[in-house]
Each structure stands twice: as structure tokens, then as C-alpha cells.
């Protein structure tokens, strides 16, 4: 049984001139529980829209989203979305941000503090609980955002190019942090990126998308052993394969 099933998802936007724009067509995906799926594609192929449909932030035009074979309607409360933009609440401290979902659930204060401490340790940022988001770098803020998403403890973690705005070194560091977290928490992750190496390092499976209309053109199982080395032949071969797929689609 799949954890998450996307059945014939499609999205048509109404353009300003009354023209219809087909952003997504017939998206079918089945994600197993605990699977790490990367969605890759060039800009404008509807990756972000796809995540927003799954999250329920944008209504779909056609198709269904199923969680444990149950239909999801409106907001999908079993998943959370980590945005590409820095999305921490600037009026709260780091502590206030991470405990936000816990507070909403009514978790009491001492328990919240313990959880925040544990989560900060998990993302490798101990001792910043009392800092304000604007005092931290972009990479640190994104780690806090991941910790906050984990505090919500969703079944499915949707990530929309969360490392997109970071430099290569920070990006690789956060990829490792994310893999560690994923190993510990066994979450099902859908991770959108346009960085081929990032997809190969992270994913169990890479879904390749093409634009106009946004659709899936390939679904690649990544069988390379974990702790993937970017310089091995297999890695590079896979990189070239995906690059060719993306180039053909453009």
C-alpha cells in the first residue's frame, strides 16, 4: 500500500487575459511510506504547483490525492510544506518558531522546551533557541524551518527547493543534515529541486518533469548505495542521464 497516491492530478490556471494555462497534466505518483522522492524539472514545469496541490494550498482542477488510500480534501493536515522562501515568523524567537505547531496542539511548556532542544540538536543548531530569525543566516533559518516542520510531526514532508537560495557548501551540509533527520524520523519526503546532484544525493526515486504542460516524463529508481559520492562513475552516469532527459524536454 502506498502512503501517498496522486491520481491523475491536473491543474489549469485562468490567465489574466482569460486564456487557460495548463500547469499540470495527469500526474500519477505512488509514494511508499518512508520513501524519499525528489521531483526535478526545469523552471516552470509545475513542481511548486504540484506540492501546493498535495498540500491543499491550491485547489486541483482534476484528479485526487490519497493518503493511506483515503481521499484528502481541502488542507492536507497530514503533511507540511517547507517553503523555498525564508518563512520563519520574524516576531517569534527560534524557540517560538519551532514550538509554534506544538503550542497549537496544546503541548505543555516543559515538554515543548524539551522537544525544541532535541530538534535543534537534530538539525545541528544548539544554543540558538533565544535568537531571533533575522540574527541567523539563510542556511540556519532554513534548518530552523525544517526543525519546525518536524515539530509538527507530519506523515509527509513536502519540501520546495528549501536549499535553493544557499551556496553550494551550505547546501551540501544541509543535504547531509536532512538525510540524517530522514533516517531517524522515517518520514515520507517529496523534495522539489532543479539541482541534479542534489536529487541524486538525496532520493530513493527521482521523478523527472517537463514543462508545457507540466507532466512526468520519467521515474528513476536510484539504487546507488547511501552516503553517495558525487565523483563515482555511477553517480556521474546518472547525472548525465537526467541532464539529457531535462534537455530533451526543453
Amino acid at each position: 500500500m502506498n502512503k501517498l497516491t496522486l491520481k491523475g492530478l491536473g491543474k489549469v490556471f485562468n490567465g489574466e487575459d482569460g486564456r487557460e494555462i495548463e500547469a499540470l497534466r495527469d500526474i500519477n505518483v505512488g509514494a511508499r511510506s518512508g520513501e524519499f522522492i525528489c521531483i526535478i524539472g526545469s523552471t516552470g514545469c509545475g513542481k511548486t504547483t504540484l506540492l501546493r496541490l498535495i498540500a491543499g494550498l491550491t485547489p486541483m482542477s482534476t484528479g485526487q490525492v490519497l493518503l493511506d488510500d483515503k481521499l484528502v480534501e481541502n488542507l492536507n493536515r497530514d503533511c507540511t510544506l517547507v517553503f523555498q522562501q525564508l518563512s520563519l515568523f520574524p516576531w517569534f524567537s527560534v524557540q517560538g518558531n519551532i514550538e509554534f505547531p506544538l503550542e497549537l496542539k496544546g503541548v505543555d511548556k516543559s515538554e515543548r522546551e524539551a522537544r525544541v532542544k532535541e530538534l535543534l540538536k537534530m538539525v545541528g543548531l544548539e544554543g540558538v533557541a533565544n535568537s531571533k530569525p533575522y540574527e541567523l543566516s539563510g542556511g540556519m533559518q532554513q534548518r530552523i524551518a525544517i526543525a519546525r516542520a518536524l515539530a509538527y510531526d507530519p506523515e509527509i514532508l513536502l519540501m520546495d527547493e528549501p536549499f535553493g537560495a544557499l551556496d553550494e557548501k551550505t547546501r551540501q551540509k544541509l543535504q547531509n543534515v536532512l538525510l540524517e533527520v530522514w533516517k531517524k524520523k522515517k518520514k515520507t519526503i517529496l523534495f522539489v529541486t532543479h539541482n541534479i546532484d542534489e536529487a541524486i544525493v538525496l532520493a530513493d526515486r527521482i521523478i523527472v518533469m517537463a514543462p508545457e504542460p507540466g507532466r512526468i516524463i520519467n521515474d528513476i529508481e536510484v539504487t546507488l548505495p547511501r552516503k553517495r559520492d558525487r565523483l563515482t562513475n555511477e553517480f556521474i552516469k546518472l547525472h548525465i542521464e537526467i541532464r539529457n532527459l531535462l534537455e530533451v524536454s526543453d
Partner: protein
Amino acid sequence: MSKLLKSWQSFLLPVLFILIWELWAIKTNNPALVPRVEAVLYVIIQPFSELIGTGSLAWNTAVSLFRVIIGFSIAVIFCVPLGLWMGTSPTIHRLVNPLVEMFRPLCPIAWIPFAMAFFGTTRLPQLFGIRYTDTILDSVQIGMVFIIFWGGLFPILLNTIYGVNGVRSLWIETAQMLGASKRQIFHKVILPASLPAIVTGLRVGLGISWMVIIAAEMLPGSDSGIGYLIMYSYELAEMQILVACMVMIGLIGLVLNKGLEFISLRVSRWQSLER
């Protein structure tokens, strides 16, 4: 540049201004037109002494302040919730906004004659059927409260709406994605995110209220307050009292503004540092 020199630079022009005033006063030699600086100071340093049969400077200042506090508080209690409501509900905005646009260009001072005609000299205690309480409440005319309310109304209302509209959809969606209900989003996201703009509205509104009350007190039918004291000392050609009142109005305005500026800096720290 040394710190001392820098702070001296801020004092230079004000001191020069007072000096020129003093020279002008000496040269004119007409206290009924240009009072000497020391005459003005003499009034200010004994704020509790009786002036021209209208109570002391301190008392009249307190009366004006008290009127503003009451009128302004009503404006806050009314406008902040309405602004939040208009900001979050497009329907309410469509319903109420035409009325706002209709009244907004109307200067609050233009309401003064209307308020005088409509409310007369009815005082706050009389609203509750009490003729005389022998407290400062007796000096609070409903008409003045009404005018101060109008002075605070639009800055508070419009800034609140502006604040709510400025809440990023990213924050709201983030909260939704972390399990927040509509109510929780309002309390935990919309309210804190629009607070800096609301406080700006309070600051502007309080400044206008303070100006409007002085104008209202200058009109016929007024019997106390610093605006009244100014007009009365004008009629008696007691220029040193008149100028002392002006200084007082300026000082109170400054303190009110600085107080809210302090609060404003505290609640909007994240906003200025985020960019």
C-alpha cells in the same frame, strides 16, 4: 567629531532661538505683545499656582490630557477591532470602506461646530444621570470626546487595515501548513504581524487628537483646558501665560510621541531588522 561637540550641535539652534526671542522682547518692550523668556519660565516653573481665575497650568493641562485619553481610548477600542475586521474580511471592507472614504477627507476640526450644536455642554457624568461629581470627569464634555474620537479614527483604522493587508501570504500559508486554525492564524500571525502598523496608527492618531483638543477648547462654550487657557490669556493680553501654554502643549505632544515611539520601536524591531 567628539560626542560632546555633537550633542552641542543639537542645542545650538534652539538656544539661539530663545536668545533672539529674548532680545526681541527686550527691544519691543511690550509684554502684552512679546513676553520676556523669564516671564514665561516663571509661569512654567510654578505650574500649580492659580492663573487669571481659571485654575492652574497643571490643572488645565490635566483636563486636556484627560479628555484626550478618554476620546482616544474610545477611538482605539472602536478602530483597532474594526480595522482588523475590515482587513481580514473583504465583505466587511466592501461594506464599510465607502463610508470611510466619504468621511476621511473631512478635517476633524470641521466637526467641532457640529459637535457643539449636537452635544451642547453635556458632560460625561451627565450621560449616566449624575449632575455633578466634583472630579475631573466634570470637565469632560461629550462633544470634545467626540471630536478627539474623530481625530484618532482614521489614522488608527487605516493603519490597522494597512497592517493586516501587509501580512505576507507566505506566513499565513506556513501557519496553515503547521496546523493552525483560522482563529489561531489570527492570533498568532495576523495580530503580531500587523502590530507595528497598528502602533504607527496609534502614534499618528494620538498626535492629531492632541492637536484637535486644543482647537476644540479654544472655541466659545469651553471653560477649561489648555486651549481655553490660551484663548483666555489672549483676551487678557497675558502673553507670558499664552506662550507658557504653547510650550506646555509642545512638551506634552513631545512626550506622547516619544512614548509611543518607544513602544513602536519595541514591537517593530523585527520589521526593521528583517530587511
